Each structure stands twice: as structure tokens, then as C-alpha cells.
């Protein structure tokens, strides 16, 4: 097996480009999402993105706020109890970003269909409502018949819809822990990550912890993302911050509200990027920015016990640095 460790800069350089179809997994608005990876995309100036979200998160909120997103497909675009996604909504209302709406269940099925390499999936949802009749890709047509066309069940003659499946160019998937080969264990709901990892052309894992492969051998049933479908592994503790990672840290309530508030205007978004996106390169700098007090606070999570079975396999920073240097050799 191949050691797939890359730095976050290398991974963004190698696996993202302007105009790509990009998937941010798990894209949970409060929980798991590869947010640090999205920040690095902003730093490297990626633009004209077609983002497949499933749910919104602070990642799509930021990418849309800086004007990097032309189009987004989504089941839910908000930040749940943290409010509407101000940056994304600004981009949508101004017409900068086209938004194509589906249901959350539909997004999951479309990933599943993509993983199967099917052309479409039959839809019992997103039909007979505006998710079928309204298409941002065909705005002049209402009710739209091209987004989710009607199909006939060949066995019963009943009418349903056909939804396009999803095959993104690249998915950057946040996971709790991975080994250096790309086997991963996720704590908390996996949401769409199982299907997404098989539907995407390339997969980059953004892992809060790197563990020994012996951990995977102890819990093989829990390894839902397998090295066979993974291209790169980025080690980045607190990668989902200010969102949560079950077992490791809670969402940063103060920063969640603050970040969303700053996404409301272009000027504030620039200020936010200066302070929180463009101001770090190394992981040490990233951690210093979050601040020690905050790290301690969000790490005192009621879910910490979920990590207990895995702790003995966690690799140290020094070990990972050594392994990372070997990737380059």
C-alpha cells in the first residue's frame, strides 16, 4: 500500500482547479466538513467552482462569499440553529451563484447512483413540487420538465421522476481518523461520505487524527472509506473548526456566529479572510489563531469517550512528520 500523506497546500494544488465539480464532505452544517481544505482553496484563488454540497456548511458559505462559486447543488443550504448562510445567500440573491435545490434524501440517492455509475436514479421525492418545477439551469422554463423529467415505471405504469446522478471531479472528505493509506473511520453520522467516496473521481481525506493501520485491523467493520478509493490523506487536526467533530471537539459557538456575520458583506468577508484564512500556512499557525483557550474549551466535549477505543493507535505529530517526509522521497 502507498503512503498517501500530503500537506494541505500540496493536496489543494494537486487536486483542485478552476471550474471543477467539487464536493465538500460530509458537508454537515454544524458537524463534519473539510473546512480547512476549503480555506486553502480560497488562499490558492480557486474560482468558477461547481459545488455539490448535500448540505451547506461554513465551507460553501466562505467559498460563495469570496465569489468562487458559479453553481451549487444542495439539499439544505443553511447552518441549522446558527442561522441562514449569509455568504451563500448573498451570492445567490445577487445572481452570482446559481443554486439548484433538491431534498437531502435526493442528494444521498444521487451520490449512490453516481457511485454505481448509473445514468439516473428514480425519484419518489422532488416531484410534484417546486424542486421539480424550478431549475436554476433553465430559469425561463416554469414548470421545468428538464431537471427531473417524468418517467414511467415499466412494471406498473406509474409515473415518477428521473434525477441525474452525481459524479464529482474531486471530494475533500473530513474524517475523524485515517491511516496513511486512506482507510478511514468516521465518528458521528457519516451522512453521505460512504457514497460520496465512491462517486467521486478523486478523493482527498482531511483527517483530524492519523492512526496506525492496526486500528483498522481491529475495527474493519467501521472502516467505511477504504484506501482503494482514496488518492491523498491530509493530516489536519481541528480541520472542521469552527464546526464540530464528534469524539474530538464541539462546534465553536462564538466563531460560528461571528464567521457567518462577516460573510454578509464583501468588505467584511475580505477582512475575515485577512484575519482567519490568509494568515496561516503551518498547522501551528492555524492552531495559534484558534487560540489555546478556545482549543481547550471545544475539546471538552461530551462525546470525548467515543475516542477511547482508538487512542492507543493515534500517531504522534513527530511520527507523522517523519512519514510525510517519506511521501516526498
Amino acid at each position, binding site marked *: 500500500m502507498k503512503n498517501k500523506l500530503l500537506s494541505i497546500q500540496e493536496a489543494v494544488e494537486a487536486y483542485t482547479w478552476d471550474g471543477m465539480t467539487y464536493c465538500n464532505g460530509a458537508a*454537515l*452544517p*454544524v*458537524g463534519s466538513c473539510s473546512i480547512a481544505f476549503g480555506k486553502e482553496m480560497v488562499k490558492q484563488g480557486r474560482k468558477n467552482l461547481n459545488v455539490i454540497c*448535500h448540505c*451547506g456548511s461554513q465551507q460553501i458559505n466562505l467559498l460563495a462569499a469570496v465569489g468562487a462559486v458559479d453553481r451549487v447543488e444542495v*439539499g*439544505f*443550504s*443553511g*447552518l*441549522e*440553529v*446558527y442561522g*441562514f448562510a449569509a455568504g451563500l*445567500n448573498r451570492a*445567490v*440573491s*445577487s445572481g452570482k451563484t446559481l*443554486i439548484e*435545490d433538491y*431534498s*437531502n*434524501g*435526493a*442528494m*444521498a*440517492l444521487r451520490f449512490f447512483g453516481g457511485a454505481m455509475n448509473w445514468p439516473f436514479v428514480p425519484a*419518489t*421525492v422532488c*416531484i*410534484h*413540487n*417546486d*424542486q421539480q*418545477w*424550478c*431549475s436554476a439551469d433553465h*430559469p*425561463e*422554463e*416554469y414548470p*421545468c420538465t428538464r431537471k427531473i423529467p417524468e418517467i414511467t415505471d415499466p412494471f406498473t405504469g*406509474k409515473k*415518477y421522476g428521473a434525477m441525474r446522478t452525481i459524479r464529482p471531479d474531486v471530494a475533500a472528505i473530513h474524517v475523524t481518523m485515517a491511516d496513511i493509506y486512506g482507510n478511514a473511520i468516521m465518528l*458521528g*453520522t*457519516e*451522512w*453521505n*461520505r460512504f*457514497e460520496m467516496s465512491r462517486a467521486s473521481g478523486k478523493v482527498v481525506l482531511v483527517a483530524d487524527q492519523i492512526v496506525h493501520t492496526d486500528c483498522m485491523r481491529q475495527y474493519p467493520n467501521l472502516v467505511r472509506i477504504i484506501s482503494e478509493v482514496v488518492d491523498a490523506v491530509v493530516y489536519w487536526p481541528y480541520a472542521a473548526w469552527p464546526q*464540530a467533530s*464528534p469524539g474530538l471537539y464541539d*462546534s465553536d*459557538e462564538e466563531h*460560528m456566529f461571528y464567521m457567518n456575520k462577516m460573510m454578509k458583506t464583501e468588505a467584511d468577508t475580505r477582512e475575515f479572510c485577512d484575519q482567519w484564512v490568509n494568515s496561516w500556512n503551518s498547522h501551528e499557525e492555524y492552531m495559534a489563531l484558534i487560540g489555546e483557550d478556545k482549543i481547550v474549551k471545544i475539546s471538552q*466535549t*461530551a462525546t470525548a469517550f*467515543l475516542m477511547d477505543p482508538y487512542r492507543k493507535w493515534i500517531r504522534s505529530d513527530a511520527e507523522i512528520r517523519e512519514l510525510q517526509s517519506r511521501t516526498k522521497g
Partner: protein
Amino acid sequence: MEYTKQEFMAITTGREIKDGELIILGVGLPMLAGYFAQLNHAPDLRPFTEGGVYGSTPVGGLPWGIECNRISANATSFTNAIDALGFLVLSGRADNAVIGAAQVDKYGNVNTTGIWDEPPWKAGKYLPPKVRLNGSGGASDISVGCKRYLIMASHEKRRFMERVDYISSAGYLDGGDRRERCGFVGGGPAAIISTLGILRPDPQTKEFWLDAYFPFTTIDEVKNNTAWELKVSPDVKIVPEPTAEELKNLRTVDATGSLRKNG
């Protein structure tokens, strides 16, 4: 007894939930109503979230999201969206659900997607909204698949509309047997619980009428805050006030007091 309208609405919604039901709870008020019911009168309720978090109860207050650590600290299973929204909801297996609404119309159609000056159905085209909301999330799946479900909404004229701007989650569409003809596996919305009372669908026309109102309001006030000509049930009732026990249970679930913050 001191309580807020939001608390009364959550308790009223909770009373609609039966013990033993397999129920999917959306984030925010719906979750509070559901977990209140579990603590108050439905110990064998089987709640889950659309991410596939099973067997848990909130820890430390209202969860920030359906996947928040506050709902992940004592789960018996974590699965995924295909499982929760597909196998359990779209399949027709789940008994009940609670969803929110920015706008709801007289047939229980819900809009959570956007607000337009001229909505798509009037304009004949789909332009960007004046205000983008969140989209349907799992509520559209719930509206198709759950055996029945409950809608919670703030009772204002701009929200209780003759026709919503955008149907994110289909209720009875344009009424009568239209929903059945669409072939949806689930039964549709059983009630709208608002900040003023409870609306239920007429069994034939499926138009929502006033079934009960809160003791602090009047039938006229409810009508004045509804944009369609609201019919009133012949045996319209007054919703019983929260008991001390109910309030205690609700506040145990709402440990951070989110329902007491804005009256």
C-alpha cells in the same frame, strides 16, 4: 403560570406525538417538541435524525444541528442519510415527524426555500429570490414518506398564505385527492401547530381549518393573522394550558432556555 408562546407551541406539538412512534425530528423547535414528548408521556418514542443518529437524547441543551455533539453523545447507532431519509422515511416506514415552515398555505404546503417579490408560479420563470432561505433539507423527504407529520410555524399573515411562493415540501398540493393521485407513500400533514393554535385538514377538501386556539388569543385574532379565509371547526376548542409537569419536562430538554429568550 409563566411560560412563553414558543414554549406553549412546543408543548402543544409534543402532545400530538404518541408513545412508541418511530419519529424523525428536524433541528430546533421540532427537536425540542419531540424530546419533550419522550420525557413527558412517550417513553418508548423512537426518535432519530436525518443523518441517522439513533437512540439518543440531547445533552447540554438544544442541539445546534441534527449532527451536533449534543445529540451524538449517547447514541446507539450512527448511520447515514440513505438509511435515515431513504430506508426509513422515503420507504414509508416512519410514523411521524415534525418540520418547520417559513410559509405554509391552506393545503399544508410548506416553503423553506426563498421569498420572491413575484414567485415563480406567478412569474412563469425561476429567478433568484429576494431572500434565500435554506431549502427543504429532509423535510421534502418527510412530506413524501412519513405516515403523518406535524408542521410548526409562527402564526403571521405573511407566513399563513393562500399560496406559498415555492413548494419545498408538498402537503395536499391543491387539495382534495390530489396528493393520493401523486402516489406519495405517506399520508400528509396531520396538523399545523402555530403560535396561536392548531389547524387540521378537512377530511374531504384537505383545507386546513382552526381546530383549537390558545387561551391568550381569540378566533378573530387567528383569522386576522391568516391570509386565506380560515374556516373554524364546528367544535373548536381552547388548547389546555401547559401543566407544571409539562413545563418542567420541556425545560429539562431545553436546558439552555432557547424557547424563553424571545417571548
